[in-house]
């Protein structure tokens, strides 16, 4: 047992011999929890996850003997946890509307029994290794929770419980370890959050993550197991985009980490997720979702921990063979929490107050994403999507620039687009994706062989129109040739009819890959037909007046993804729309 020597904001100096860095401590009469971040002889420096007001020198302190760990087992899905995995609904019941300090509630419910079905392949006497599947608990209708041997355990299976109802406190098996000791197995185990969970080997990511957002899937794709960042100033749409991904993406599990952001945004997720159906399984979205919340007004130290908690939960489902998506809103708040702690420790700041290890911390964290072959031999993935909140929207600041080096997909949000309410405000020139070749393969095999060409054409058109716009802004549109004016118009059509996608529109909110491609091909076809005419000498002015252009801009919100027949009919009729004009100009050019 040790004692408090000094309290300085969230940092406390303790007299606590023989502790180790990273060890959890419980401090003071309130029993506040924190972790050791420094040692000097018999004194230790700890940061507490809760407000330290009211603590006094001389109050007791004890080391708990383990690092910050999470409980992994049935009861995770549909739950909302704080930054150190306290279950917020249970905490609410126990301590009321406000987060009282020192409340101790187990992360996973102990009073609930789960129906455990042992894996029929398991035999007493066989040798089990970490990550092996003991059996399943059907946690929600769409997700079977696979009960795993803890990653570091290994030994002979002595006994496995028969099918039946078990609480987390009841053993479901016994294993003889290599040193002869006998361990009990439970439906859950613990894992330290700052240690990546082991796997057999890394796999190539191959499948695109379909988000239903056209500018993402069609233009800047992300793969299952990939890493993406969404930088943007406030109000640009980072949160909405992440919520859209959490809603519609074709992952099996979604971990939503609200890191230092608004309380109401989590409430929003908690309210809409149970009501929306997973477009891929038809089940309520909440059944595959899990939230970790450290809102901006909750203690900063737990904010630093929250992203690790989320990542460990993601890896745990990956190890069961699932494709997991983790969205972190916002990684900047995590970096700022890091900066705050570094400042208090008196570490030398290098850029904008951030410590020198910011870049390596970020890289190590993103490195935990990926597609892997699991210990049990299956395949699972963690896709990581981090929002970045650059001060003043300046992408050259440390967190954005370091992150940009690490990730493969960069969805840059633009204030100008957001101000004009062009959402998602993903900037088509500044964004990039290193996954296009892999994605192209999938699109070619599953949607259309011409996907890659069409995508490139559309991007060229957009880039060219940017150039033209610059000219227009200098000398006016009259300076452009008819061809150039038509290019400008077609780019506008792509921006409004394809890239812009309202999350709030019931039909447009999600677009299947088929719908995405159909719209892309249609708008390019309009461009092509028009170009033919312009080359025959038709003035762009005539084309721009065609009612077809206004109509095509509405197609995205008129046709549901699962009902494309009418859309395809309209697309097939595009050449006919141009026929009359074509005849007219073909004649005049032959004359």
């Amino acid at each position, binding site marked *: 047992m040790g004692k408090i020597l*000094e*309290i300085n*904001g969230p940092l406390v100096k303790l007299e606590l011999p023989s502790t180790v860095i990273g060890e959890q401590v419980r401090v003071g009469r309130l029993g506040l929890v924190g972790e050791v971040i420094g040692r000097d002889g018999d004194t230790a420096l700890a940061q507490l996850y809760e*407000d*330290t*007001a*009211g*603590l*006094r*020198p*001389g109050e007791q302190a004890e080391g708990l003997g383990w690092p910050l760990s999470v409980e992994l087992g049935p009861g995770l899905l549909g739950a909302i946890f704080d930054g150190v995995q306290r279950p*917020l*609904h249970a*905490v*609410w019941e126990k301590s*009321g*509307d*406000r*987060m*009282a*300090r020192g409340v101790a509630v187990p992360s996973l419910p102990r009073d609930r029994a789960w129906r455990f079905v042992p894996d029929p392949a398991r035999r007493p006497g066989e040798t089990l290794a970490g990550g092996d599947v003991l059996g399943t608990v059907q946690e929600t209708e769409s997700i079977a929770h696979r009960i795993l041997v803890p990653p570091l355990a290994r030994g002979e299976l002595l006994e496995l419980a028969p099918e039946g109802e078990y609480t987390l406190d009841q053993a479901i098996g016994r294993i003889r370890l290599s040193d002869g000791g006998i361990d009990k197995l439970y439906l859950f185990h613990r894992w330290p959050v700052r240690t990546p969970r082991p796997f057999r080997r890394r796999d190539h990511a191959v499948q695109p993550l379909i988000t239903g957002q056209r500018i993402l899937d069609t233009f800047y794709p992300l793969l299952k197991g990939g890493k993406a960042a969404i930088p943007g100033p*406030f*109000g640009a749409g980072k949160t909405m985009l992440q919520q859209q991904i959490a809603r519609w993406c074709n992952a099996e599990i979604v971990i939503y980490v*609200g890191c*230092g952001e*608004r*309380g*109401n945004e*989590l*409430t929003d997720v*908690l309210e809409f997720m149970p009501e929306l159906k997973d477009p891929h399984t038809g089940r309520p979205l909440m059944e595959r979702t899990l939230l970790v*919340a450290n*809102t*901006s*007004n*909750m203690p*900063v130290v737990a904010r630093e921990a929250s992203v690790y908690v989320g990542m460990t939960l993601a890896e745990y489902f990956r190890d069961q063979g699932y494709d997991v998506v983790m969205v972190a809103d916002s990684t900047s*708040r995590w970096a*700022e929490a890091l*900066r*705050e702690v570094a*400042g208090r420790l008196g570490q030398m*700041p290098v850029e904008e*107050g951030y410590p020198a290890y910011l870049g390596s911390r970020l890289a190590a964290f993103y490195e935990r994403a990926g597609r892997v072959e699991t210990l049990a031999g299956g395949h699972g993935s963690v896709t990581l999507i981090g929002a970045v909140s650059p*001060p*003043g*929207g300046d992408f050259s600041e440390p967190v954005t620039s370091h992150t940009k080096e690490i990730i493969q997909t960069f969805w840059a949000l633009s204030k100008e687009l957001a*101000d*004009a*309410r*062009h959402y998602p405000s993903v900037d088509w020139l500044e964004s990039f994706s290193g996954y296009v070749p892999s994605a192209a393969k999938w699109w070619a095999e599953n949607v259309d062989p011409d996907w890659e060409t069409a995508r490139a054409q559309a991007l060229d058109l957009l880039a060219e129109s940017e150039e033209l716009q610059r000219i*227009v*802004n*200098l000398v*006016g*549109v*009259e300076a452009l040739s008819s061809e150039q004016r038509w290019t400008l118009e077609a780019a506008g059509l792509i921006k409004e009819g394809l890239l812009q996608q309202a999350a709030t529109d019931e039909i447009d909110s999600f677009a299947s890959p088929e719908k995405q491609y159909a719209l892309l091909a249609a708008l390019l076809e309009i461009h092509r037909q028009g170009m033919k005419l312009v080359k025959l000498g038709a003035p762009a002015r005539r084309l721009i007046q065609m009612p077809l252009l*206004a109509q095509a*801009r*509405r197609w995205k919100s008129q046709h549901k993804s699962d009902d494309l027949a009418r859309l395809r009919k309209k697309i097939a009729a595009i050449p006919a729309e141009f026929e009359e004009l074509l005849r007219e100009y073909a004649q005049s050019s032959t004359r």
Partner: protein
Amino acid sequence: MKNIEFRTATSAQGGLVVMSGVPGVASGSRVQLRDHAGRVRSGLVIRAADEAVLVEVFEGTDELDLERTWVRFLDEPFKLPVSRDIMGRVFNGAGVPRDGRPPIVSADRRDVNGEPLNPAARAYPREFIQTGISAIDGMNSLTRGQKLPIFSGGGLPHNRVAAQIVRQAKLLGEDAAEFVVVFAAFGASHADARFFQESFEESGVLNKVVMFLNLADEPVIERLLTPRAALTAAEYLAFDLDYHVLVVMTDMTAYAEALREVAVLRGDVPARKGYPGYLYSDLAEIYERAGRIKNRRGSITMIPVLSMPSDDITHPIPDLSGYITEGQIVLGRELANQGVYPPVSVLPSLSRLMKDGIGKNFTREDHPHVASQLFASYAKALEIRGLAAIIGAEELSDADRRYLQFAEAFETRFIGQGEDEDRSVYETLNLAWDLLSTLPPEALIRVSEEELAKYHKWQAGAEAA
């Protein structure tokens, strides 16, 4: 411990006093210092160890004589006594009456720092508040429980706009404002404080207002307490007494500057422009106290006023605020110079909760699309106005000239309105359609074809003169 006076100050400098020989002092506890002249100052324990206790003194350490300073540790954080009697009263930043009337006596005394709301206990704000101001109701609407600041600049009429919102705010279908108001001014001028006081008086709501004033010439460090005391009162009114509380706070910039001043004294590492790295979290502790709670009737709707240093929205104070609040109403100097009141710059303005509080079940079914269309058309119109400035308006096409006229009408008729003009949201939407009717239907793709058929009154060629 509360009753013992210690005379063991070993140093005093820049607002901080070090005390020795006072073991077991609680961190965050309140302190009273009595100086040689008998003057009482108050402070806060910011670092506690048995050998030395660091106290931050609110009134500063000027003229402190260490040998003749007596210090008492009150063993509790700053607390505000609350009861129904706070209504209609005026306090200073620390909750002491400044209206000459007796202090509030109550056994119910609350820690002004509050405790964070459990996110699971929050209820999502969805009820549309009609402010009667078109630029807000039509395009950046406010909901009950939202925190929506006014980003302004020196000389702009933010006070008048805030006062107009307070006067006119009501839920649809209600006759009069059923809000109570908590008003907090920190670092404000006497004139500003008087302006609000008179405005409340004129609209006859003074007995439903609680005021917390820390004026520009009053202790800086007390400024840090003022919003916290005000929000403690607001929480009591909203969640104990079921009131809908409208909190108006001015000026967040003065608050953040006070925080920076104190941080420098403490030697905290600066992040941007000298502001400490924790400015974000500190502001969040204030802003996030707005909201609704499940199973509670009351609500806290917050309208902080913030003046942007040199009109720069990327300055840390508006920037960090924008990252926390649920949108922002931005006032623009250009509009103000053109004589437009209220000079709301709609494009950089935003209400994040609007999408969930308007439309079919809340205001009118066309509202979301109309708002989106106004944004898109006005953004395009401004682009064309920029172009016209370069190449001359006469070089523009007819279609483009129509946009110029639209921008003009939009600014003067839609954004602009009287300070006493209280427009219903239906008037606002109809006005929007009047303006959109000057643009051809094929240019309006954010509204549906049905809405066009129902509301759009396009006469080809008629408007383009």
